[in-house]
């Protein structure tokens, strides 16, 4: 799905517009002609495996890296020519923790409030405001390096929020933090999005993708899908005409999957925990159960399911892989 099919509503202004954004490191192309169109209030989830180019895209959009080719506008400013204007107006949380460990929570916040030029009179109030937003009030005097992973991320978020940016870039904010802290952080993002902050969040957790209003999937430097989660799940490439998705339960699913792959009418099979998602030709539900029964899986059962985002990414990655190898 490309940007043209994504319906642009005139009511919401475009916050990020990237056209053929490309970055090479020597002969290696880390980001290859990426187009983005992100509107105010979106929570854009930027997915992709490690090394696919997510951080490089974010750095270009923040004015940290010069694009080799193409251009991008962030909040109306060109990221190459007006990178300083971009920096003033956005919040950024880099992939690794990058606050000062030997400074306390309060000192880090004061520092960023100063750097962003918050007028002295408003500074204290503004800092209290972000402390309340992320709920880090109990740790004011704590050295940043003594915080747990989740609290570190909240502090980083607070520092990035201190100048009330309308757009936040978060590069894998949930990497390496525990599931509870992850959920809390996402709830925080929803709260802020409700107040009109636009988010650009990279992650490689599939479950986080489901929570985003829009998703882009980058694979080997190329943006291969872009749209809302429901749009992605309805993509014809994911579930082609004349095909259906089934969830299959069987005794030994690994063996069952190997067996499934030998059936000519089965298009794709992927294990998800204790079930197999099968992409198969229409009206083959009974045939699968019968055929598996003949191959020694007597109590296999199937039931139709809609595509999940993971199905989408797996299917499209496989497709790309086939194209690359061809």
């Amino acid at each position, binding site marked *: 799905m490309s940007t043209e099919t994504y319906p642009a509503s005139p009511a919401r202004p475009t916050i990020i517009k990237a056209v053929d954004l490309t970055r090479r490191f020597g002969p290696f192309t880390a980001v290859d002609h990426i187009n983005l169109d992100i509107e105010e209030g979106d929570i854009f989830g930027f997915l992709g495996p490690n090394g696919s180019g997510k951080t490089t895209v974010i750095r270009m959009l923040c004015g940290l890296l010069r694009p080799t080719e193409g251009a991008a506008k962030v909040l109306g400013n060109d990221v190459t020519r007006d990178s300083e204007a971009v920096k003033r107006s956005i919040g950024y949380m880099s992939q690794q923790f*990058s606050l000062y460990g030997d400074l306390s929570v309060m000192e880090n916040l004061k520092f960023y409030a100063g*750097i962003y030029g918050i007028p002295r009179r408003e500074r204290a109030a503004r800092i209290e405001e972000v402390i309340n937003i992320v709920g880090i009030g109990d740790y004011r005097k704590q050295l940043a390096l003594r915080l747990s992973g989740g609290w570190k991320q909240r502090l980083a978020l607070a520092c990035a929020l201190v100048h009330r940016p309308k757009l936040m870039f978060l590069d894998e904010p949930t990497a390496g933090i525990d599931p509870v802290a992850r959920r809390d952080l996402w709830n925080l993002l929803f709260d802020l999005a409700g107040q009109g902050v636009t988010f650009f969040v990279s992650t490689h957790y599939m479950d986080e993708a489901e929570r985003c209003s829009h998703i882009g999937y980058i694979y080997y430097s190329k943006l291969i899908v872009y749209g809302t989660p429901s749009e992605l799940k309805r993509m014809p490439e994911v579930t082609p005409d004349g095909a259906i998705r089934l969830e299959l339960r069987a005794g030994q699913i690994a063996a069952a999957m190997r067996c499934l792959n030998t059936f000519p009418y089965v298009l794709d099979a992927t294990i998800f925990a204790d079930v197999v998602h099968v992409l198969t030709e229409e009206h083959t539900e009974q045939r699968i159960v019968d055929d598996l029964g003949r191959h020694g899986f007597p109590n296999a059962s199937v039931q139709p399911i809609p595509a999940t985002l993971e199905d989408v990414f797996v299917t499209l990655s496989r497709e790309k892989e086939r194209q690359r190898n061809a």
Partner: protein
Amino acid sequence: MLRGLYAIIYKESRHILRDPKTLFLMLVIPSLELTIFGYAVNLDVKNIPTVVYNLDGREASRKLIDTFVNTGYFQIRGEVGSDAELKRAIVAGKAKVGIKIPPDYTDTLLSGRKTQVQMLIDGSDSTSALQALNTGNAIAMLASLDILAETLGAAALPVEMRPRVLFNPDMKTANFMVPGLVGVIMQVVIMLLTAFAIVREKEQGTLEQLMVTPVSRLGLILGKLVPYGLVGIGETISVLLLMRFLFEVPIEGSLLYLAGFTLVFLFTTLSLGLLISTLTDNQIQALQFSFLILLPSFLLSGFMFPQETMPKVIYVIGQCVPATYFIHILRGIILRDAPIEALLPSGIVLACMGIAVITVATLRFHKTLA
């Protein structure tokens, strides 16, 4: 242009104060270095251990020994009774000088003939050897002149050379060496204060976050310079106090000039450290880069070897390090109470160097990643 300056100063000061152990070390190490190296470079050789083999033993020979002792350069560690013993004392390192007075010393002198006093010198310590040799010659010369004057009946010798050393009348090497040492030590410790200031943030990844803020380049650079400048002032004061009161080097010139020129030197040297920090990717590189400047500061700044005798190329390299100018200024103020006209040229070069270096550092520092 200075956007973010105060915030950076605030943050850097917090870093410094958060770690009092490091701050203490920063303030104490220069003094420690000055104490150790100050004694090491003190080239005045006093009390050279000496043994005497006196085969004569009469009044005239004892007078000669007294002359040696009275110069202050020799300390008699004992008398020996044979040539072999004399030699052994030197080989064993018990003495560096052995004096052998022949049995007929007094007789020969009285009869107006020439006598020989033997002086064995341990040449493995060239400084004391040279000192002993020169002093020994001078003593022999003086003794001969005395006898000559007596026999000739002249009240005084016709020509007397009276050299007078200006500015450092006692020829104390400490007076000459210690101000130079102060210059060199300051060069090292001050430059290393800032050489890591930015590169450390590169390594920790905090610089990337800073680059996405509206902080200005000059604000960042000066914000790092100012707090370390204060540390540098503390270091300078402690080192100068030590020079004045431990090594008893008097400051002849104006303290105001000293303070003023020292500030210029601090600015230049801190800027140089920052330049190194912007040019390098990690702390190891920064350290290696620093050595590129520190070595000439030691060897070519005129601290150890006179610059006048250096080959042209080497001399020019020496003129590129701030320590050269600072040492010139320090010696001028401390030893000679030099007039401002004599100090200004070095001061101006230092200031221009500082401005050039901080400009390059600021321009070299980009708020984008490579």
